[in-house]
């Protein structure tokens, strides 16, 4: 399982301020922590970055790789910022990853960059027309992206398919559809396609204390479906892996000794599977 450390995102206030001030300290501190916690790639999410995106991405890539011997995931919709980042990326620590191409024609040129710079690419299975309705639609978009990747010269083993995790608080029925899509994606090639999710979006909009619980157990269910990587909190995922055996027992309907933990797992499984309707207080019911 490859964890792509999610913490260097412009959405986080501390990170955003450091990006604006080009203050290396907080960026390097967070990058180092994620590396030590088990991340294999560090995500650098600079947002749409319409002004000065090129400089910012180059600064992020070099700042991270100064202290951490890992590749970077270049995460922005600004293609020229991605190219700028790829130019300075130190491939000695591994090949970079681009987040992302999709079925939106505006995102096709990303594949050119992937081929030109020998980078791996995430293919987000959305089109221009909005969110995919189910696993089948995600798989159909995945097939389009795979065909296009080959056309542009990105080998399929360098493509990570991302089914787009949606918020459980508002789109509960998609939780299971995404798990199903992860299964379907693998069957679309031999060797199986690699897969990735933006994991923590599952718990976006949920109360703070619920977020790690939903993130961890959803991750374990995705892992059982064959997920190969996740943009996630490495520390949280390490905890999840420690609980995996217990969780698999509960998933299989077995009793475990810790009754409170069992209830927490059971109720979360029921919410993810859509057996019970999600509400912020679902654990208290």
């Amino acid at each position, binding site marked *: 399982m490859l964890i792509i450390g999610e913490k260097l995102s412009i959405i986080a206030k501390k990170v955003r301020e450091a990006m604006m001030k080009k203050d290396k300290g907080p960026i390097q501190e967070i990058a180092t922590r994620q590396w030590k916690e088990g991340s294999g790639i560090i995500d650098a999410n600079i947002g749409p970055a319409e002004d000065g995106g090129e400089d910012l991405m180059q600064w992020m890539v070099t700042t991270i790789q100064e202290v951490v011997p890992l590749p970077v995931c270049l995460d922005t919709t600004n293609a020229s910022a991605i190219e700028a980042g790829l130019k300075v990326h130190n491939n000695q620590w591994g090949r970079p990853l681009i987040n992302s191409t999709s079925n939106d024609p505006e995102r096709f040129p990303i594949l050119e960059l992937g081929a030109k710079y020998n980078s791996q690419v995430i293919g987000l299975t959305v089109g221009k027309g909005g969110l995919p309705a189910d696993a089948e639609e995600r798989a159909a978009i995945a097939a389009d992206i795979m065909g296009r990747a080959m056309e542009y010269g990105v080998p399929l083993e360098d493509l990570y398919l991302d089914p787009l995790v949606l918020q459980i*608080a*508002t789109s*509960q029925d998609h939780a299971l559809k995404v798990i199903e899509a992860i299964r379907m994606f693998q069957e679309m090639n031999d060797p199986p396609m690699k897969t990735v999710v933006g994991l923590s979006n599952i718990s976006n909009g949920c109360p703070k204390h619920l977020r790690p619980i939903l993130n961890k157990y959803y991750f374990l269910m995705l892992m059982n479906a064959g997920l190969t990587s996740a943009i996630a909190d490495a520390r949280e995922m390490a905890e999840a892996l420690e609980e995996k055996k217990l969780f698999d027992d509960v998933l299989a309907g077995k009793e475990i000794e810790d009754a409170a933990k069992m209830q927490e797992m059971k109720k979360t499984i029921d919410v993810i599977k859509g*057996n*019970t*309707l*999600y*509400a*912020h*207080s679902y654990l*208290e*019911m």
Partner: protein
Amino acid sequence: MAFTPTKETYSGKVYPVTVGTGETAVTFGGENVLPFHSFEGSIPNRPVIAMEIQDVPPSDWPENVRKPFEAVSDDPVKWAKFCQDELKAKAIALRLVGTHPDRENRSPEDASKTVKDVLAAITIPLIILGSNHAEKDSQVLVAVAEAAKDKNCLIGKAQEANYKTIAAAAMANNHKLIAMSELDINLSKQLNILISQMGFEKERLVTDPMCSALGYGIEYTYSVMERIRLAALTQNDTTMQPPMLGDVGMYVWKVKETQAPEADLPQWGSTEERGIAWEAVTATSLIIAGAELLIMRHPAAVAAVQKTLEELV
């Protein structure tokens, strides 16, 4: 071989809720099947239609729905009696719209007096609605709950922003409570949980997932209601088992189709008929989605929906 129709069995049941006291009390809910699926189980109670009146004259209602109440709507007591005695309403919904700060800004004391006067004049059950101003409602509804103590009214609407005070007042004065959330099934469940965590029995709740008129987003209301009912019946989700309210009249009688004059839009036909049909069709759609209680305005629309119910349930 004889034909055997396929039947679904459901694990859950909608709570029956009774409003009012004595012989005229009404009960709705109680079924263990989807709307009109009486061949699969039991539907002990028909959906109930309450007729809407206001604490202040209905100057904001379009003419065609104002007209039937012209002689009585200057006084909520006369208006309530007219609905009960002349129109044979099964229940009255008194909307205290005059308490809204942007309207007459009537005080909680004024509202309490209106409620007492109306209660003294009628024997049928009373639903008491605030002005949908979260802050003001938490004062007004607390006062009127006390004024109507032990009359087993249905009070509302409690929302995320004010449910604590309103639920406490309904509990202390033995009323039923409407819990309203804005077209979001997960928030609707959450509000019911929060209210029951206060000690308010969920068997005394009515869920309002928020109404919308035909042509103005009714598909959202329909879909939320349908999913709430499916959660109640197929998943036995007790938090989703209170009956549901469709507050139809106030949404229907502000859309263009109920008001645009025939002179301007001759292809749309008679304004009066159109408005009545719009209200009746909106209400009937929501009954099909699972609503057990409706609040409506036009006597002819009420009669049409009542007739449908009598023929089908």
